[in-house]
């Protein structure tokens, strides 16, 4: 099956078997490995990517759904000059990345929250990030980082 879509701002074409997962299309076929597999069943969120601006678990999405879509992975968030996305900068500043394997998924999900705008509390952020698992940080510094970006109320 031939697929054409936008990946991190660039048009791409790729061949994928009908049952392929989007995660494998990205990682194996296209060699874009920033999105990680932690569970393969949509529990950990390490494979999160943005499709049309919405964060989804790419391990649960058939590759076919990429056709014609605008997809952004962790590799597509920073600026062309290498300037970090505000969420990436906040993760760095707050020490929100430790082993880093869950970081791409958290950053992508938080980037969507930032795009959504609106008023956020820390409790809202905890709920919005509950689909992403981290085993290193206890989430404290992740919540701190995202709260700063979203200008959240305490």
């Amino acid at each position, binding site marked *: 099956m031939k697929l054409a879509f936008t990946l991190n701002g660039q048009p791409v074409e790729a061949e994928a078997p009908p049952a392929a997962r989007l995660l494998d299309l990205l*990682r*194996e076929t296209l*060699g874009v*490995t*920033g*999105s*990680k*597999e*932690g*569970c*393969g*069943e949509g*529990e*950990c969120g*390490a494979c999160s990517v943005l499709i049309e601006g919405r964060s989804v678990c790419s391990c649960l999405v058939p590759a076919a759904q990429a056709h014609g879509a605008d997809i952004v*992975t*962790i*590799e597509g*968030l*920073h600026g062309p000059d290498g300037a*970090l996305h505000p969420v*990436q*900068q906040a*993760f*760095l*500043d*707050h*020490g929100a*990345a*430790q*082993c*880093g*394997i*869950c*970081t*791409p998924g958290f*950053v992508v999900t938080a980037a969507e929250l930032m795009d959504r705008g609106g008023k956020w509390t*820390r*409790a809202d*952020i*905890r*709920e919005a*990030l*509950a*689909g*992403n*698992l*981290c*085993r*290193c*940080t*206890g*989430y*404290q*510094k*992740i*919540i701190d980082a995202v709260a700063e970006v979203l200008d959240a109320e305490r």
Partner: protein
Amino acid sequence: MTIGQGVHRADGRSKVTGHALYVDDLQPPGCLYGATVRSPHAHAEVLSITRDPDFDWTDITLVTAADIPGRNCVFLMTEDQPALAAERVLHVEEPVALVAAPSRERAALAAKHVVVEYRELTPLFDAGSAEGNDSVIFAPDNVFKRIRIDKGDPSQVSAGRVIEGTYTTGLHEQLYIECQGMLAMPRDDGGLTITGSLQCPYYITKAIGKLLGPDYEAPGRINVVQACTGGGFGGKEEYPSMVAAHAALLALATGKPVKLIYKRDEDLRATTKRHPCAIRIRTRVDDAGHLLSFECDMVVDGGAYNTLTPVVLSRAVIHATGPYRCKHVRIDGRAVATNTPPNGAFRGFGAPQAHFAAERHMDRIARELCMDPVVLRRRNLLVDGDLSATGQEMLDVGAAQVLDAALAAAESEPPALPDLPGGGLGVTRQLRGRGVSLVFHGCGFTGNGEAALKGKVALELVDGQVRILTGSTDIGQGTRTVFPQIVAQELDLSLDQVLVVEPDTAQVPDSGPTVASRTAMVVGGVCQQAAKKLADALALEVGRDAPFAELLAERTSDMPLRVEHVYADDGSLTWDPDTYQGDAYPTYGWNCNVVDLTVDLETGAVLYQRLVTATDIGRALNPVLASGQIEGGALQGLGWATQEEVVLDDARRMRNDRLTNYIIPTSLDAPELHTVLVEIPYEGGPFGAKGLGEIPLDGPAAAVAQAIEQAAGAVLDALPMTPERVLEALP
């Protein structure tokens, strides 16, 4: 000045941009994929291994024990664990064969078509009856290790009242988010490069040297490289040697690169977990609550192979009394073999089990004496000059300070819980409680361990930069950031002048394993000493004494300047491994947890509001990394307390082998974590630092148990305290 600064992680940018390369991100051309055939039985004879004649084997390579060129063992402390079971399997999920195929799917499929014929034998599951059982798993008597600690003589104490209790803890999974994975690549020179997710590169070179036969035993024939590693927590201390052994066998058999990456279910079912523990404590206490005698009997279930179990038992018995003073102590510990998957290293390494028992026992004493549990702890806690259970004179003790600091920080009101989905409409009965626990944790290896290990670090001055060569790995805790901070501070350089070289055993010396809360304190100390040597060497080369940066600017030679330093203690520590008396650890960290929670009386669910921790870590080399590590460990402790339960089937295989049903805390389950760093310097550590990696996991579970008791009167002495168990324990 870099020490004490929360500088960014050295690998932070690559991690937040998704450019950091983990083992499964490496895709060498022509790479094959491996899969493992595992035993469905807990105990059985292997009669035959054959290929399903109806399956297409043309692109598949099959490896069994018969194909192993050298000795069939993954060496660690002993040689009991085979890489592939040959005649007998001793636990469910034990590896019996390997396949390599051009794709992951073909490999997984081929593994299902390997036909293994077994004759089932009676398994031994009960740790309590393992010792001396007729069914011998570990010769001669199924005991991996016995340890006895005697201080004074509890049998001579007749004063006070006897208070007894039994405490149990279950299996606990490390649950690193990146599953186990290894890539083995044959080198052009006939050697083999193994790259993977791991904590201890030199464990692997030692583990598989003999496995691959005489061709690979010579130094340098195998080199091990650490890829960026997605969490370890002990789970990537010893098990990676097994994965590496398998990947290496397949690479040798095929002559091609072979990647072996576990899926989550296989990782959960097959790899090591925290040792289940049953601990009985009998104390005598006076009316004021002072401990007059302390007797403890401990049985640790090691599973079917030795792995690191003797050392886990060692740490458990040494911490058995908790951070309390007692003149008459007897501790009897046994680690036994059962036909269950081997248990192994997990952050805390026996101490969390011991502390849960000791702290719950203190709560029992408080209950029976009608005392405030905090007052009871204050009356017994260790102070400078006290003798520990091993007779060590305790110094730099932070017990009282962390207790005071945590209680002070917990004075403010904890944040309110958000409304639960569904609301409860005010009919839900929820009771609030607070619990306090106090723990200590020995930093570094036990007794003479560090002196025997002789961890080595090299520093090289190349192109105006100091390169740190160390076998210590960064698994998220920040080694690659903190070591440069130490060296930069010592040499008064800026951080961008110091970097850590990629851990590759072809380049870096053996600094000892990345375990035991030893990396910053012990290996960091070796870095500091090496930096002093480098300063001397540069002064000698340039021919005058001046600040390092000044000499560096003057340096004209383009030859690398290299120094090495090997750990050596000052001889002031004494330790007798036979009597378990003496200086068990060079120093200790101290930690207090104050948890605020709510118990839902309808469901038994525990909802965390806030966890305040105060931890004496000697010196916070990087407070952001330090508090981050403490927070992560603390939440693992809360998960162990109420959420994380390994459910086993009749063969003792993990049934809840998915993230859907082995439940680790999410950001919604996690409370706000308030982290206080206390700094009582240890002069043997770099800039006063003590170890901190493990202690945050030691205490939260006991604090939670006390809080549940305070809130709802439910007394729980077994982990995990799932909603069902809480409901059952409600008065």
